[in-house]
């Protein structure tokens, strides 16, 4: 698969896209701005990007460059002002709010910088919260927790876990429902070096074992080393790409 600088050809629409092109993600001319102080501030400017199935893409850039906004658009958490965003055959630009909700439930998993575990649910219940809404059997939760090495912590609440353990629970939550795409926003930003390395190893290992596509946003160059591809973003634009093209396995 190739990541390309804009401009790029218009994508075909619909679920045939993945089958036709092999692209898990196809972004074309995406633009996003926010109003701040009464003025529109462009955060993403004419961004086009293709990501293949099974890739482990690291989006690298300084704070405020627009990388998290790109992640939000891919996750259906926000909408682009213009352009098209196709993920796994879903046209996110045209999707209704209900369709976006269903997309988030079934097709995409999130890993956040601050873990975002629900503090009143145990580790297992947090993972179950991710699978039940996807319509996947609750029984998938515990094996995934075991897979991230936290079987013994299933009954613990987030406040009883370390930061690294919490992020592992978050990874299990994101993956237990079997999404085709996992989006991670600064997943190691709140961890020390050792724990960060452990989390990255885990994500990369799961990427290789399960084949789930990962898009990881970070400002940390050391994270880039784990990616099959690195996309550099500056001032709302993709300025460079590096790494091998194609599946990360």
């Amino acid at each position, binding site marked *: 698969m190739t990541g390309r600088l804009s401009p790029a050809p218009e994508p075909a629409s619909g679920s045939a896209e993945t089958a036709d092109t092999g692209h898990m993600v196809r972004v074309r001319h995406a633009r996003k701005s926010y109003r701040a102080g009464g003025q529109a501030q462009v955060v993403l400017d004419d961004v086009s990007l293709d990501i293949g199935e099974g890739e482990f893409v690291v989006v690298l850039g300084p704070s405020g460059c627009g990388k*998290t*906004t790109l992640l*939000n658009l891919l*996750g259906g*958490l*926000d909408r682009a002002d213009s352009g098209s965003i196709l993920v796994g055959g879903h046209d996110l630009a045209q999707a209704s709010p*209900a369709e976006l*909700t*269903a*997309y*988030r*439930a*079934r097709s995409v998993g*999130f890993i*956040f*910088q*601050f*873990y*975002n*575990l*629900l*503090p*009143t*649910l*145990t580790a297992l*219940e947090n993972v*179950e*919260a*991710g699978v*039940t*809404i*996807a319509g996947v059997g609750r029984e998938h939760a515990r094996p995934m927790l075991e897979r991230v090495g936290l079987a013994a912590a299933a*009954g613990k*609440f*987030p*406040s*009883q876990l370390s930061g690294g353990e919490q992020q592992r629970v978050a990874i299990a*939550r994101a993956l237990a429902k079997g999404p085709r795409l996992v989006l991670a926003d600064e997943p190691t930003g709140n961890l020390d070096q050792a724990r960060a390395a452990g989390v990255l190893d885990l994500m990369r290992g799961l990427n290789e074992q399960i084949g789930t596509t990962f898009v990881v946003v970070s400002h940390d160059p050391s994270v880039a080393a784990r990616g099959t591809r690195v996309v550099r973003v500056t001032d709302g634009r993709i300025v460079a790409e590096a790494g091998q093209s194609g599946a990360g396995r």
Partner: protein
Amino acid sequence: MRYWRKAWRDVRAMRSRAVLLLLVIGAGIGTAAGIALALHDVRATRDGFYRDYRLADLDIRLSAAVPAGELFARASAARATRATARLILDGGALPPSGGPAAAELVGMDPAAPLDQLAMLRGRPLAPGDPSGAVVVSEYASHARLRTGDPLRVSVAGRVLTLHVRGIARSPEYLLATANPAYLIPQPGSLAVIFLPRAGLQALAGLPGQVNDLAVDLPGGGAGAGNRQLASGLPVTAITPRDQQFSYRFTNADIRSFALFAPVLGGVFAAVGFLLLALSLRRLVHAQRRELGALLALGYPRRAVIITAVLPAAFLGAGGAVVAAAAAVGVAQLVATEYAAAVGFPAITHTYDPVFLLEAAGAALVTALLAALIPAVSLARLRPSAAMRGDAPPAFTLPAALRRITARGGLPLVYASRTLLRRPVPTAATSLSLAAAIGLGAALAVLSTSVSHAIDATFTGQAWSYTADLARPLPTGQARLLAAGAGALAAEPVTQGPAQLAATGHRADAQLTGLSAATPLQRLRIVAGQPPAPGRIVLSEQLASQLAVSTGDTITITTSRASRQKLTVGGIARTLASQQAFLPQPQAGTLLGLSGQATSLYVTGDASVASRLRASPAVARVTSKAAALTSMHQLVSELTGLITILLAISLGVGALFLVSSLALSYLDREGEFATLRALGYGPGHVTGVVASESLTQTLVAAALSIPAAILIAWPLAQRIGSAWFQISLAPVPGDFALAIGGAIGLAMLAIAHATRQIMRASIPAAVRSRLIG
């Protein structure tokens, strides 16, 4: 540092939360102040009316007419500053529509210096129009009389046709009732008809004669001079101003209403402060990092506290405006509704600045205090600790509780544990709501209990009508009179005024002599025994006023007998407040009416009442059914006032609920954003919000039942001392409206909160650090 500018920016950034806080600050205090202001306005209106239309200091009513000059001479001798003599005759009114009613025909000087008429419609009395009547407005409204209507009256055995020339209010008959012994007035039960004095004297064949003297005396008419003024006259009643029915009722009623004010205000103020303290604590803690930075930059603690508190000052100032506005609105609503319920003149709204300033000041001070406490504690932190921000809330549960709360779907699990995670706000919200619901339910319980007390009292009575005799008759003749009218049973009684005294206490009473067997009028004895020779039975109110119980000794004084000592043999529950009962022979002796009856209790149908009314020996006839209906009517009119207070209570409760929900969701906006990011849609979010809110509302509803009883109990005691004793008799319906209303409002709050959550930006909220 420009503290004010920063504070103003902070408040503006809060947007709808700031508005909600303004309302929370203003609503509780404003409602409390509004009720107090309503009371003030009602009192001021009543006093202003009495002053403007000159309610007399003292009224002396005679059982026989005497020359007017004699009464004026006595008034002059007593140095009365103003005096007017009137001829007042009992009779009956037969209006064009509606049934007959007891009537009081008042022949007065159209230019009387006392007890003047406040004309509402038509023209005043004219000496040249002897049959031109002015009718008291309450009765005119009840009988649908208009100016120009003819009005037939029966008086002294004759039926006359008068013409309604005007409708007026009278300070003396502001609340006119056929049975003044019953403190609850019966609206429309007494037709008070004013005529020119000479006209009534001519109609009654009593030229120049009067039987009533109203005077203003130096010192307000209190003291021994009163008896001197009436000495040797055939006195029926001497009524000082403070014993006058309207005056007594409004005083008693306003006193009982006055107790509602601190209870209502206290509940609102307490729950308001609770939620305000929680809200402003959050507001102050939201600035924690900023304040930590100020400390790190070397700003003194004082500056940090000012920075933290100033936004609350802005909110307090806004809340002060809301409180003052709410006070005005609530005062207008409550006072107007009260006036309509009890038949008061149009309320003069004073907008007394003292009340408004107090409300505004209380709002400001409350807001500042609520913010000052967390601000001081924050300012004591080390800069590094303050800059780290609030620690994420830790949460654990005992294993058993964890298992119990793990049942059900995610919305239930998350909701139940969220409520357990925040026990203080959860408890505060539930208690606040319970207080608001309980307050509303307590008012409904009181209304039901008053109705129940009236029913219970009348249910025990076997009579259908009472007939007050125009003059005392031997009991045998009274029985014959009843039999002649077709009564199935009759019970003559002897009644008259008496004064009772116990150690350190005195009270005026209506002494009633009951026959040995009392088949028709049955006393509800709540302590001791029925009347017996030397053993008097007192109403609960009298016993309370005299601070006596059964077995104690009291002294009784009447105008016809010297003092006598009696033992309190029993205490009875009566609607009429100042009642005392003795066996008829002993009462007759004390009242100087041995072997005579002053009124009759009879059973029979409406034709018996008609025949009694037609008899010249009968002054007035009162129907038990009409008395019962009119008392219920007054209670139902007062229910309108209660409904308004209930609506205010629920409105404030709903505001607190919305506010606490908003506060709770603001604290967890990151968690809701996470749920939405995981794919939870509006249905699931509504499930979470509804589970939490309805749980709190249902807990509050359960707590509101004992809360309502706790609130209603002291109010019932107060009503008991003002009107008559009532036992709380709650029925499920009393709670249904308040609880149903609260659940309905909770549903609206849930819909609002869900909409707010679904409108929030997921990307912004999901990065919140306040996640465990």
